[in-house]
């Protein structure tokens, strides 16, 4: 697949922008919950690089999606891991790309089956528009216009360096 990824912004620069927005704004003990898989990598890096005590959890939204009948169950479901109490916590959901908002809807519903957080915010590396639900992010690395027929996702190389890539949507 030879999609032209040359015009995509540098994901590392976007990450630094995102981090700079979050640093003064999030609670000292805000808990970061990454949505697999790109959001999980971002949450790990943010927790390591932001000041404060930020515990990290991971959500796989597969069991909360609304498109089982049309898309089927994804073949590599990961285990949701939230190793702290959600009850009364300040939570930031972290994802790589905000698009229709359906994954975030599913992530919020997942979260509430673990308890009642004090607050929930959303941090994304890229907002590509195209919302189908009334969802907005609190922290955005950058807005980006991408053709609807392309999937935009975050990748991570062996050294841990982030990059954005596009490819045609694939059947799961």
């Amino acid at each position, binding site marked *: 697949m030879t999609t032209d990824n040359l015009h995509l912004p540098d994901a590392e620069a976007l990450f630094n922008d995102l981090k700079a927005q979050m640093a003064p704004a999030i609670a000292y003990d805000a808990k970061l919950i990454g949505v697999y898989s790109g959001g999980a990598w971002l949450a790990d890096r943010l927790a390591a690089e932001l000041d404060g005590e930020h515990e990290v959890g991971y959500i*796989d939204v*597969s*069991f*909360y*999606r609304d498109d*089982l*009948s049309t*898309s*089927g*169950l994804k*073949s*590599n*479901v*990961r*285990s*949701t*891991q939230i190793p702290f109490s959600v009850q009364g916590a300040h939570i930031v959901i972290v994802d790589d790309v905000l698009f229709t908002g359906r994954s975030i809807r599913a992530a919020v*519903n997942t979260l509430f*089956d*673990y308890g009642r957080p004090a607050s929930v915010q959303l941090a994304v590396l890229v907002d590509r528009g195209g919302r189908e639900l009334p969802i907005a992010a609190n922290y955005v690395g950058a807005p980006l216009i991408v053709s609807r027929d392309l999937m935009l996702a975050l990748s991570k190389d062996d050294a841990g360096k982030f990059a954005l890539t596009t490819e045609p949507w694939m059947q799961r």
Partner: protein
Amino acid sequence: MLSKKNLQLNENGDLHHLLAIEGLPKRIIERILDTAESFVGINEREVKVVPLLRGKSIFNIFFENSTRTRTTFEIAAKRLSADVVSLDVARSSTNKGETILDTIANLTAMHADMFVVRHAESGAPYLIAQHAAPHVHVVNAGDGRHEHPTQGLLDVFTIRKYKKDFTRLTVAIVGDVLHSRVARSQIHALTTLGVPEVRVIGPRTLLPADLERLGVRVFTSLEEGLKGVDVVTMLRLQNERMTGALLPSASEYFSRYGLTPQKLALAKPDCIVLHPGPMNRGVEIDSAVADGKQSVILPQVTYGIAVRMAVMAILSGSTR
């Protein structure tokens, strides 16, 4: 046999019905086990429900009674947010003369999305799958002496939890293999997953004649067969299925084939003990083993819910 095999998969090679382990590709078995892994966590939460199958109707149709298996399927369906109805058909319309296919047609007219079927006749779930509407999924919950695929899957899931790598294991299945659909499903699952040595141990009268064809080693001595094994599955002595004089007596059976701590000591020190339940204590298994450190009989029950959730979730995502 080819049509049976294809019946389980849709055009894309995805699982559409679960009728038997025999003929299932390794990738499908592994996908079910991996998905079940994620459901284990759901079952440990305070809120043990996910909305995945909201609005789906699952009918448990048990032409043969089994409270336990029916209950585990009910729990699995409810934890996926499906609407589940359990019919004890053994005591209803079929007694009034209705055929299986008429029962199924009636339930399909009530907009069923999935049938979980148990039947005393081998092959009954196939008959239903062949005549089911394209959107309907069928799960075999045990058919005659043929297969009990979700039990076989939960057995290998439990084994994987404790032993990780299938390709180094020696597994023994002990007892009444002749009447056991559990044994059949487990043997197919183990050999498909690459277990190099599967042993079957039992009295000749309770072993099918063509066992070696399944790629297993046959032992008639429990002591010989247990030497060096990593996993042992004890089968229930199925008194209700016995016809004719296959055994002298339950106590005679226990003395030769019952698993006691002394006999278990012949296996590897970290050997785990499985039993599909319900157990006959003092017939095929000694209480000291059933309740002992090496027993994983209750974890099997726990994992059984996650495995059945995985099967229902994967099937519901398949279209035809």
